[in-house]
């Protein structure tokens, strides 16, 4: 008979357990107190970027009965029944408690006043936002976060995202006292104070009082803070308010053994509510590991909790912080090697054994790039070079070292997958080993292991060039070569092909070499570019005039209708807010363009690896909810980047508010209006592998926005592979989004002036490609059906009617000579 497993709690750990047991024989019932499905609480502070809870959602659970908004109110262990708030009773064969934790709120007088919040759930953030919105202080709002640990700094970051200047109050003498030592914390404080945070350490709040619309907090050191909002983020406590009559651990939490089992053999506890052999854990990785233990036990296995690696690496307020092993040098006789570079803003401390032979732990602040190679060396022999000033950190990792700590994947597992040929790239490694699918911080290490194992896909463009597209771009830019023939003679072999010719044509066009159908370029173009229209299955083409931002006058709409009617074209509205006219023959194209150009239209570049369209919602002009003029910006962007040739097509959109009606996050670059300006997202994609775009900059004004887009697009154009969309480019970019931000926002490489100048040259150089053909008899002459019978229609093309329009008669595939 099917046995029933009841899971109480639908947080990250409970969710993981159900995911693992999804295909098991257990019938699974989940009680979740929150009405929303499980979400990524680790990424909670990013909710402030979008205010969309969907962004944080974990993959939906299947194969279980998910009772959301149903709090488990009691458990009768004798009858083996869980009772929900609605009165529902579910009988279990096994019960897993995954109730998580509750925020610890210190007993400060006034802590229950309106305007005081905790920081734990999406609802908490919504409440904090409501308090901030209601505050009537002119200029920036003022807030206080009680707690200067990891969570406190996260909360401070969330407040900053809401336009609040936070005071951070920490009882310990330094920030992040658990993970970071005094030297590291000193640097951390300096770095975060540059970001509009005020840090008060070694003190606490002694009272909070309401004064009109303000809150006044008195600190133990005598300071008084005038505030709009207070957030308690001073740690968590295991949540055990559901009383099963089971023993608790010394610091709370349901006491369980190494198999995560309570004294009742049918009842388990996992995650933050569990005290495994008396010890509680406040990180998600040990929780996942407990979920795996219980899943194994329930499947008849004998796995036990292996203990937890409490190492952490994170980016707090843009500052890298990492701590691993014995970070505080508590081991007897431990020695510390400290490099504190106040000028560069980096701090590193390695802790080694008394004989300086074994690495015990360390702390990194400001630059944690060496964390991935150092952490696996804990407990192992420390390479002598590491202890020299400026010692190299590129050290060989032992085979049993854990590369992915979220899923406990060792280097051995990964190299096995690579060497057996199961995985040839990061995506395949993720699929077959799960490494890199948690927090993702080990992805650069996965890439390195692929390279170390000799997996390096040839970057050669095709048989005619050994260079990658990016390298060819630099060659063409540096040598100012303007013809394919010169390029292939000097830097390639043979005559070229359908891969390198269009790629080089695109590079030449990106570098502003005149009309793409110029004498030297025309033979390089793929048919769409060669005829400035889109080839369809029967050999005819479709025509898409530019309609910037999707805004069009009735007069222009009528012209499109008249042209379609007069040439018998099938019309369809595209997904990019414009109109596609299908069924034009080669000789009709210039006639159609003539009519459109005369009416004020121009090419929409639907045929090119170029900017397509900038979609928009109606924005403030009409919409009751809009906060910025999205149509105006969309038109400005579309007119700025029209005709820009790139490694692949570019799509964009502008939404006038966070409701995101223009679907900007599915675009290569998407803009979403905020009350203070614009958020820019990059690397989005629909299509075969959908990807939401990542936030690059937030709350910027229009001038800054355009500057960053200019740089982003030019950087992409120069460095991407052939036919690589921005999403794949960004995924493959070493250092990912952070690196992109360093290059195009912080100008770390010092190339931004050059990128901006290149875009300015494009904008100056732009000319309508259709008009360029109409004004040039030589180009025009190429638009004939037959060179020996101009004007004679192609006899293979015929049409039939469907729903009142002309559509192609399917071509018979000719009898092929075999």
């Amino acid at each position, binding site marked *: 008979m099917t046995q029933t497993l009841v899971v109480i709690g639908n947080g990250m750990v409970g969710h993981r357990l159900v995911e693992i047991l999804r295909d098991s024989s257990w019938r699974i019932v989940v009680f979740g107190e929150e009405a929303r499905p499980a979400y990524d609480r680790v990424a909670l502070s990013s909710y402030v970027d979008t205010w969309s809870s969907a962004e944080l959602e974990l993959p939906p659970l299947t194969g279980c009965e998910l009772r959301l908004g149903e709090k488990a109110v009691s458990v009768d262990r004798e009858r083996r029944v869980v009772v929900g708030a609605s009165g529902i009773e579910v009988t279990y064969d096994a019960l897993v408690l995954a109730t998580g934790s509750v925020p610890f709120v210190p007993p400060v007088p006034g802590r229950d006043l309106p305007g005081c919040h905790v920081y734990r759930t999406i609802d908490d953030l919504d409440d904090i936002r409501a308090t901030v919105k209601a505050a009537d202080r002119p200029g920036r709002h003022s807030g206080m976060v009680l707690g200067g640990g990891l969570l406190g700094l996260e909360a401070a970051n969330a407040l900053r995202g809401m336009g609040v200047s936070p005071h951070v109050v920490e009882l310990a003498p330094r920030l992040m006292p658990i993970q970071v030592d005094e030297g590291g914390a000193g640097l951390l404080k300096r770095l975060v104070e540059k970001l509009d945070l005020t840090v008060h350490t070694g003190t606490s709040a002694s009272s909070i009082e309401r004064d009109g619309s303000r809150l006044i907090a008195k600190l133990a050191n005598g300071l008084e803070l005038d505030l709009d909002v207070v957030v308690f983020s001073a740690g968590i406590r295991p949540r055990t308010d559901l009383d099963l009559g089971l023993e608790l651990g010394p610091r709370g939490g349901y006491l369980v053994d190494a198999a995560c089992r309570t004294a009742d053999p049918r009842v388990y506890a996992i995650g933050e509510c569990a005290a495994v052999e008396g010890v509680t854990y406040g990180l998600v990785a040990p929780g996942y590991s407990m979920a795996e233990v219980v899943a194994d036990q329930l499947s008849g296995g004998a796995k036990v909790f292996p203990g937890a690696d409490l190492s952490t690496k994170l980016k707090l307020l843009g500052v890298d912080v990492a701590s691993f092993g014995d970070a505080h040098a508590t081991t007897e006789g431990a020695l510390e090697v400290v490099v504190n570079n106040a000028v560069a803003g980096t701090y590193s401390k390695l802790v080694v054994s008394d004989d300086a032979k074994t690495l015990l732990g360390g702390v990194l602040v400001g630059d944690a790039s060496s964390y991935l190679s150092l952490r696996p060396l804990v407990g192992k022999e420390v390479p002598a070079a590491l202890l020299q000033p400026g010692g190299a950190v590129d050290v060989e990792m032992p085979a049993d070292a854990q590369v992915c700590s979220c899923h406990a994947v060792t280097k051995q597992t990964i190299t096995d997958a690579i060497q057996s040929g199961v995985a040839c790239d990061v995506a395949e490694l993720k699929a077959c080993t799960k490494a890199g699918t948690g927090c993702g911080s080990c992805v650069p290490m996965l890439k390195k292991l692929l390279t170390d194992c000799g997996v390096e896909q040839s970057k050669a463009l095709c048989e*005619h060039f050994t260079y990658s597209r990016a390298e060819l771009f630099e060659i063409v830019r540096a040598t100012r070569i303007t013809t394919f023939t010169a390029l292939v003679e000097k830097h390639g072999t043979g*005559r070229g092909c359908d891969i390198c010719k269009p790629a080089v044509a695109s590079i030449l066009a990106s570098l502003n070499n005149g009309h793409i159908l110029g004498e030297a370029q*025309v*033979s390089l173009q793929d048919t769409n570019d060669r005829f400035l229209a889109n080839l369809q299955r*029967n050999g005819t083409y479709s025509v898409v005039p530019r309609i910037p931002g999707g805004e069009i006058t009735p007069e222009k709409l009528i012209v499109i209708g008249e042209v379609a009617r007069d040439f018998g074209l099938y019309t369809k509205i595209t997904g990019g807010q414009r109109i596609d006219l299908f069924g034009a023959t080669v000789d009709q194209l210039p006639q159609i363009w003539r009519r459109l150009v005369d009416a004020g239209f121009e090419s929409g570049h639907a045929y090119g690896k170029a900017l397509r369209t900038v979609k928009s919602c109606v924005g403030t002009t009409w919409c009751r909810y809009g906060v910025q003029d999205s149509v105006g910006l969309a038109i400005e962007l579309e007119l700025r980047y029209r005709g820009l040739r790139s490694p692949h097509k570019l799509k964009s959109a502008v939404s006038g508010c966070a409701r995101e009606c223009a679907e900007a996050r599915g675009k290569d670059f998407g803009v979403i209006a905020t009350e203070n300006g614009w958020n820019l997202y990059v690397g989005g994609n629909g299509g075969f592998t959908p990807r939401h775009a990542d936030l690059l900059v937030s709350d910027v004004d229009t001038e800054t926005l355009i500057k960053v887009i200019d740089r982003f697009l030019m950087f992409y154009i120069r460095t991407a592979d052939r036919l690589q969309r921005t999403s794949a480019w960004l995924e493959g970019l070493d250092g990912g989004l952070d690196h992109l931000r360093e290059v195009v926002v912080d100008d770390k490489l010092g190339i931004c002036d050059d990128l901006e100048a290149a875009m300015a040259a494009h904008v100056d150089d732009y000319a309508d490609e259709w008009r360029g053909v109409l004004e040039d008899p030589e180009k025009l002459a190429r638009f004939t*059906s037959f*060179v*020996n019978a101009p004007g004679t229609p192609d006899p293979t093309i015929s049409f039939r009617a469907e729903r009142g329009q002309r559509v192609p008669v399917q*071509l018979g595939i000719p009898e092929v000579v075999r």
Partner: protein
Amino acid sequence: MTVVCDFEVLRPEQGVAALLPDGTQVAVFLTADGSLHALDNIDPFSGAAVLSRGIVGDRGGVPVVVSPVYKQAFELATGKCLDEPEVSVAVHGVRVRDGVVELT
């Protein structure tokens, strides 16, 4: 014999389409080394009369035209499809006489 066009109309590494009196369409190519090739214009994989609009180049040194529809390469000299060797298109005779390109 069908007249295609003046030789000077052709451009290296490009094709043009010509119509025969019987309705057959022929794609005529001039390659970079100055040689002329003529193939049936109809792409056998799509049925569309478009081979003259394909990109001309070489594959492993063999001069080819690549169909703009599904990108199969056809050898200019033989009409053989290099991606699916059992498929080919007909080859036509082509020459230049007194500066005029003719199909024979």
